[in-house]
């Protein structure tokens, strides 16, 4: 197959599949609607490190989890989820919430959407200043 045909096929194929799945409603990000959901998502990644207190963002876009090894974060990855301990994480306030940098090449950067009053308290916990949200 000539290279230019291959390129056209691949580009239109990817764009078409993206468009179709989006129109089918398969691009809506997951939201944690209950604490139990966030807890289950944490347990899926850390079955040996139980979640203590859990704090959901008001928009359900992430949850802080307190564990015996310090705070952790669980967040939606598309329709699914990912989770990390926050050891060594750095948080920087933005207009929409917090930019989070993790010392982990597989999850190096997250944008947390938070309400303005959530930003300071979450940043303190993530940066290790507070043991938990007040």
């Amino acid at each position, binding site marked *: 197959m000539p290279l230019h045909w291959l390129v056209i096929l691949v580009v239109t194929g990817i764009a078409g599949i993206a468009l179709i*799945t989006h129109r089918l409603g398969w691009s809506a990000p997951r939201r944690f609607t209950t604490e139990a959901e966030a807890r289950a998502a944490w347990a899926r990644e850390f079955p040996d490190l139980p979640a203590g207190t859990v704090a959901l963002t008001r928009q359900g876009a992430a949850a802080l989890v307190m564990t015996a090894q310090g705070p952790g974060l669980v967040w939606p990855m598309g329709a*699914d989820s990912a989770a990390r301990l926050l050891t060594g994480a750095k948080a920087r306030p933005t207009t929409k919430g917090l930019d989070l940098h993790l010392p982990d090449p*597989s999850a190096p950067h997250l944008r947390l959407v938070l309400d303005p009053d959530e930003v300071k308290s979450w940043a303190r916990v993530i940066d290790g200043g507070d043991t938990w949200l007040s």
Partner: protein
Amino acid sequence: MAELSYPDVTQLAVPVFIAAILIEVWWISSKKRGGRYETRDAVTSLIMGAGSVVAGILLGFVAWGFFSALWAVTPLDLGTSVWVIALCFVLDDLRYYWVHRFGHRVRWVWASHVNHHSSQHYNLTTALRQTWTGTFTFMMVLRAPLILLGFHPAMVLFVGGLNLIYQFWIHTEAITKMPRWFEAVMNTPSHHRVHHGRNARYLDANYAGVFIVWDKMFGTFVPEQDEKVDYGLVRNIGTFNPLRVAFHEWQGIWRDVTQQGLTWRERLMYCVAPPGWSHDGSRDTSETIKAKHLARNPQDKGTPGFS
């Protein structure tokens, strides 16, 4: 090298791949079963597939040069009959089994293969979530015996392409089980779902490409159980960025190897030990994950995946 060429079957299969994905999307949306899609996940997988083709074009000369050198020195030439191609296909599938097994048991090779397992979905786009860095694993050396035995390098690459095409259709939840005779001999969606599982039970199982008999021969076969397969990595990645997907484990190796205070043996082990190995035992390998699971669920001892 004697001139011999075969069609580039993986490129020719691209329209079939796209058509099959569209059919699977239609099936899932109309039947409300048979798998899940998510736009960014699917697009990431497809970009990884396209990038893999580009990487092959850019770096293919390395493997081809190596194979040409071997072909120049071997006194054997088995010819190009259909039976030789068929034998080459079977032996290449055995080669694939071991490359794939190394891909899960040697971190240097896992760094290349991890991206294929980084989706939490299991659909036909997952099949195309292929590596960009395979050349750097040096696993091409496992093809050397085939060429030294007299299989022409072009034939070896041709059957390797057929192998990859076979594996495309098994990345689906839309097919539950194939007929019993087929499940006994061939790799199937059911067998390969197990391979993509992050459940403790399903770790390091079913490495086969085409023939599942290799797993049965070498003791790595685990049949799909009632326990639903949870797809993805033991620690799921938190990015859809294709560059991150392609290179994150290489970056992780670099960070580990360059830590201060390690012995040279420890630095080497961070490259070649199984994924999850750490010098201080602070991380989990598949063995420790299985052991911890059994500590929590002793009733699973002796069941498939825990024997």
